[in-house]
Structure formats: structure tokens, C-alpha cells
């Protein structure tokens, strides 16, 4: 059993000596999942578990890690070294992909907490009706196009464009709410870490995050469909 500690990365030097992050490796050089569990994305990148993070710093960390660990660096060192590099790089890639995007980062933090029924988000009826009606409007626009009814299609397109603007505004509001909830969560998480136990504020922050993310998902689905129908 070896615990490898972070050393300075030296990009551009292919070879098995490329440094590794502090993961627990077994004697064969595999990450010991039994010890580390599925490695936590924050831990893989050497970051504290916080939602507010400096994405520039994240980019730099990712690039330097991947430069040292990527299997292409080990191509001439035999299949075992390549296999190990594949596995390590996949962990770095997965962590980066998840944490680089704010929404995905929030979803990941919620996933770590588990599916908690009492924190579940129930979308308000008005939102659902609104989303439903907009979906029907997109359908109507596509039908009008399919039937070659230029006038109806133009009218429908105007309606859809207006609706898109409104949805984008709502999405921006939801993002602002999520950012505020993320700051609350970070504070609660820091306090919980210090207290050595989960504080009630953490669950409150999570509930707010779940609500924001749930709301955002409806708007995003709709925006994807609106964008797609606009380019058709």
C-alpha cells in the first residue's frame, strides 16, 4: 500500500515518474477503491468541498494534472503503465467535467448527500402549466411549418421568440437564487466541518439548492427545445 503525495508537476516529461495526486494506490498501482471509495471529485482535484470555486484555478489544476497523467505520456512504457494512466486520467476528467459546470457541481453536492425525500422539490403548478403551454406553442409552430402555412408559422415564431426572452429572464433569476443558496451551503458546510457534525443550516441550504436546480431543469429543457426549433 502506497500513498502518493502531490509533488510538483513537470509537464512535458513523458514517463512513469510523472507525479500523482494523493490517492491511495495498492501494490499493483491501482487506485484502491476499497480505501478511497469512489474517489470524491473534489479530493481528486485537491480541492475543498465547496460550491464556490475559482474556475481559472480549476482549469490550471486540471491541465497540469492531465499533462502529467495522460496515457499518451506513457505510450512507450508498456501496457501496465498505460492502463494505470487511463484509469487515473479518467478520474481527473470525470472530476473536472462535473465540477467545472456550476449546475453540475450543485447536482454533485446534492448527490453526495443522497436522495432525501424531505428535501424534495415540488414544482409549483403555475410553472408546470407555463412550461406545458410553451411546449404546445412549439408544437404548433412546427405543425404550421410542416403544413407550409407561412403566416401561421410566422405568428407562432413571434410568440415563441417572445416566450424565449421571458424564459431566459426567469433562468437568470433562478441562477441568482442558486448562487445565493450555494454561498449559504458553503458557509454551512464549513461550519459543519468545524463542528464535526452536520448543522441544520446545511439541510436548509440543500433544500434551497434542490428547489433551484429543479426549477432550472424545467427552464433548461424548454430552452433547449426553443433553441433547437429556432435553428430548424
Amino acid at each position, binding site marked *: 500500500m502506497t500513498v502518493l503525495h502531490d509533488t510538483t508537476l513537470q509537464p512535458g516529461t513523458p514517463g512513469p515518474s510523472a507525479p500523482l495526486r494523493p490517492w491511495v494506490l495498492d501494490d499493483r498501482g491501482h487506485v484502491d477503491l476499497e480505501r478511497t471509495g469512489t474517489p470524491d471529485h473534489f479530493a481528486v482535484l485537491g480541492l475543498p468541498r465547496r460550491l464556490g470555486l475559482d474556475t481559472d484555478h480549476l482549469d490550471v489544476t486540471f491541465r497540469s494534472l492531465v499533462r502529467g497523467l495522460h496515457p499518451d505520456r506513457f505510450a512507450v512504457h508498456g501496457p501496465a503503465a498505460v492502463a494505470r494512466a487511463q484509469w487515473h486520467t479518467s478520474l481527473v476528467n470525470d472530476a473536472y467535467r462535473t465540477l467545472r459546470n456550476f449546475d453540475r457541481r450543485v447536482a454533485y453536492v446534492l448527490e453526495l448527500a443522497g436522495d432525501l425525500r424531505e428535501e*424534495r*422539490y*415540488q*414544482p409549483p*403548478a403555475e*410553472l*408546470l*402549466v407555463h*412550461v*406545458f403551454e410553451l*411546449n*404546445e406553442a412549439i408544437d404548433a409552430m412546427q405543425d404550421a411549418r410542416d403544413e407550409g402555412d407561412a403566416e401561421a408559422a410566422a405568428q407562432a415564431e413571434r410568440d415563441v421568440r417572445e416566450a424565449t426572452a421571458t424564459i431566459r429572464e426567469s433562468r437568470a433569476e433562478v441562477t441568482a437564487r442558486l448562487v445565493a443558496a450555494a454561498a449559504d451551503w458553503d458557509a454551512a458546510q464549513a461550519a459543519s466541518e468545524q463542528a464535526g457534525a452536520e448543522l441544520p443550516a446545511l439541510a436548509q441550504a440543500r433544500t434551497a439548492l*434542490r428547489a433551484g*436546480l*429543479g426549477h432550472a*431543469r*424545467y427552464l*433548461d*429543457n424548454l430552452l433547449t*427545445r426553443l433553441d433547437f426549433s429556432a435553428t430548424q
Partner: protein
Amino acid sequence: MAYSDKVLDHYNNPRNVGSLPKSDPTVGTGVVGAPECGDVMKLQIKVNAAGVIEDARFKTFGCGSAIASSSLATEWVKGKTVEEAANLRNTDIVQELNLPPIKIHCSVLAEDAIRAALADYKAKQKA
């Protein structure tokens, strides 16, 4: 790992797609959503004088499993009384469609939609 033709059929040829007049006092409408994936589902029932659901329609913007679940739900409630329909459980849909764990919320959505439609109908009767 074969899956039943019935499932495929509900995926490929969903039944009862469409809508009923919303303002009709004998029509109950439910619009529900699944926050897991952002799907939305509208389900409507038309109840006759004897309290039997004589027609049901749905429209779902979402994944195939949500569409299949709502298609199956409308098939089931037709011909049932309002009371019988209230007993429908999402687990029945899960079993019938063989839904995998990640798609169970789709069946929950269908159950929620029926409840919402029934509640809307009852509210209209009281009014």
C-alpha cells in the same frame, strides 16, 4: 433480456394522446412535473353521470418512459369509477412496463397526474 411487446407498443404507439375541453365541468385536468428530469405531463379525464371515467387523454413532453407510463395510465383508468381510479399505484405501472430504477419517477409522474386530474374534477363538482 427480452422486454414485452406491450412495453414497446406503448413506447411506439402511445394511446389516448390529445386533450379534452378544459372548461367542461365533467373534465378533470392535471398538469404535473418530475423535477428529476424536467418532464411535464398533462392528463385529463372525462367522467359521466354514473361517476365512471369514460374517456382519458394525455400529453407528455418528456422521455419515452414517461410517455409510455401516461399512455398506460389512461388505458387503465378508462371504465373505472373515480374511486377505483384513485387506487391506482405507480408500482402497478412499474410492473406492467418493467421500468428500471432510473425510470421509476416516470411512473410516479403518471400516478401524480391521475391524482391531480381527479382532484380537479372533484373541485369542479363542489363548485
